[in-house]
């Protein structure tokens, strides 16, 4: 690839993928549109020579991630700190604290096709998390931000963050059990 890959056409082709990432993180279509527009503008204003298209894409995705965190910071007052409390754990555990359903070892698909199908199901499960849980979970797992940094950006306590992350993970575990591992193992 030549060094002229930082043009508008290239960025336009990236837009759908950028929107998908932004929507997943922000859980708000209007914010996602804004963040992606800001990202594309920033990328256009600062053209740089890239040896390979893949490096350019990585660079643009990096800008997007910063814009997503900026957006969280700017809008942290507008976000609920906690989702309405859920009683998911009462469905998972018996009153004595044991699992109602014995956990099973998950075997992930080996072929690329079913691997991709599995990742699709995972994405749906992440989208179905309550908004505050989903945002926090992706900051932690997708952006790989340290928990204390997340707490600073969102102005929440470590305890709140811990509760939300735990709920998000338990919910994902349930969702994957039902939507993937139960159907694929039986």
């Amino acid at each position, binding site marked *: 690839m030549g060094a002229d890959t930082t043009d508008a056409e290239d960025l336009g082709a990236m837009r759908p993928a950028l929107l998908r*990432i932004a929507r997943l993180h922000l859980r708000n279509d209007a914010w996602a549109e804004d963040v992606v527009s800001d990202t594309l503008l920033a990328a256009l204003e600062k053209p740089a020579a890239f040896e390979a298209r893949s490096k350019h894409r*990585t660079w643009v995705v990096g800008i997007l991630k910063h814009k997503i965190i900026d957006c969280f910071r700017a809008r942290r007052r507008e976000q609920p700190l906690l989702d309405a409390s859920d009683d998911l754990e009462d469905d998972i555990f018996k009153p004595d*604290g*044991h699992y109602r359903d014995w956990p099973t070892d998950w075997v992930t698909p080996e072929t690329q096709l079913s691997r991709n199908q599995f*990742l699709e199901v995972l994405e749906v499960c992440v989208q179905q998390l309550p908004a505050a849980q989903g945002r926090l979970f992706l900051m932690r797992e997708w952006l790989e931000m340290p928990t204390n940094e997340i707490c600073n950006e969102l102005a929440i306590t470590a305890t709140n963050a811990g509760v939300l992350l735990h709920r998000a*993970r338990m919910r994902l575990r349930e969702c994957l059990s039902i939507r993937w591992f139960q159907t694929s193992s039986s």
Partner: protein
Amino acid sequence: MRYSPFLSCREASRLITARLDRALGPIERLGLRLHLRICDACPIVVRQFDLIRRSVRELRDVVED
């Protein structure tokens, strides 16, 4: 939370996920370790959460690439 060495699975699940986000304190670590040694269910749950972490990163790499 009770820091008895005999955590319930429900209590253990909190520590299993917390461990992914922060370093556990010495009492928490000991409690979880003892629980995982005597419980047959929770080591499976540990592997499930590890798989979720790996899979989200795989999803990220596929989407971003």
